[in-house]
């Protein structure tokens, strides 16, 4: 029994042309038993900043709450919205502070810079090692499958609608090869002027 696969999850984020997409599965289960098929794993941290948290469900909730706490204080003190790169450092700092008793989550960040609207995606491991990429990031129990799908289907500088199609196919086909991920999907397309949330219909098994 591995702690990271106790609940099961699949999250990915992709960069497009002046937009980013972040997608997650919707299953909440305890080992083989599925409990909820509408479990939220992507959390809004700012008007154009989202974080996806796969891993142990209790830590998914605690980390998202503690991050929001830190972020709220930051925005009140500094009187400005946080930059995605700075948020990455904040998450890294939070996770490393528990270096020897970690939160069992491996976050994925997707957002647009509040001033320049430049797209940003990144991921971290459970002890806070940050990784910024230019194309896509994946995290979860079926990360290998997600890497395969993204590597095959990804194209840079896609328009928001095309990016949506790409990320949806990557997610759905990857979770179909994982017993503990799936039961539907949710995709956020983050653009300069709007954020669109779409629910994916997939294999419910």
């Amino acid at each position, binding site marked *: 029994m591995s702690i990271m696969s106790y609940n099961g999850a699949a999250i990915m984020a992709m960069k497009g042309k002046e937009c980013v997409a972040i997608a997650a599965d919707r299953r909440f289960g305890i080992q083989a038993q599925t409990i909820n098929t509408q479990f939220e794993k992507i959390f809004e941290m700012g008007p154009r900043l989202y974080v996806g948290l796969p891993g142990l469900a209790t830590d998914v909730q605690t980390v998202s709450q503690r991050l929001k706490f830190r972020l709220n204080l930051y925005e009140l003190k500094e009187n400005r919205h946080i*930059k995605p790169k700075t948020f990455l450092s904040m998450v890294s700092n939070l996770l490393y502070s528990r270096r020897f008793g970690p939160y069992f989550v491996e976050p994925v960040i997707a957002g647009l810079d509040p001033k320049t609207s430049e797209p940003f995606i990144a991921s971290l491991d459970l002890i806070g090692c940050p990784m910024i990429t230019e194309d896509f990031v994946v995290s979860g129990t079926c990360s290998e499958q997600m890497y395969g799908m993204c590597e095959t289907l990804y194209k840079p500088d896609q328009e928001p609608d095309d990016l949506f199609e790409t990320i949806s196919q990557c997610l759905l086909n990857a979770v179909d090869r994982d017993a503990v991920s799936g039961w539907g999907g949710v995709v956020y397309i983050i653009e300069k002027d709007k954020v669109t949330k779409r629910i994916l219909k997939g294999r419910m098994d």
Partner: protein
Amino acid sequence: MSERYSFSLTTFSPSGKLVQIEYALAAVAAGAPSVGIKATNGVVLATEKKQKSILYDDNSIHKIELITKNIGMVYSGMGPDYRVLTKSARKLAQQYFLQYQEQIPTSQLVQRVANVMQEFTQSGGVRPFGVSLLMAGWDEAEERPYLYQCDPSGAYFAWKATAMGKNFVNGKTFLEKRYSESLELEDAVHTAILTLKESFEGQMTEDNIEIGICNQDGFKRLSTAEVKDYLASVQ
């Protein structure tokens, strides 16, 4: 066996004043003059550094100190208290960087330093700092200069131009007349020197004043040679 007082030594007078803070401000007003001017493209800090004897090695001790690449500060008041605050400010700036991997904005550093100063007016067994600080910084994100003053009480103010220490009232009056929004850094340095000159007794040389400038390239304390050049254009 208490190593610390549990009560604050800064207490209210019947008229509602914190007398210790008033006395601290008096210590500042008796200190060497310092001046700060914000220009369109930077900030200048200048201070008098008169030594009591010619035997002093002028260039070993500095009043204008760098806190981060983009922020510097100067004081009027008690030198030893200032050293404690520069150490504290540098540590606070680095703590911020460790957490956010981003240089601390000037206003954030000012708030944190002012908070330290306030703690010393409400903690057990300590006295307020006998300095007022002038903090100058360049904000990279907003691409603009900032000038702040921190008082012993912990209050902080954002200034376009200000003077502290001996004769600060005259200094401020002088600046009110001379300051303009369109001042550029070079002119601001010139004006700062003139402001210091108003209260200067004796001959101003590159060894008895210190000047620091802050612009988009960061904060820099001018060398004695550079100060000499500016002085030449004044007298």
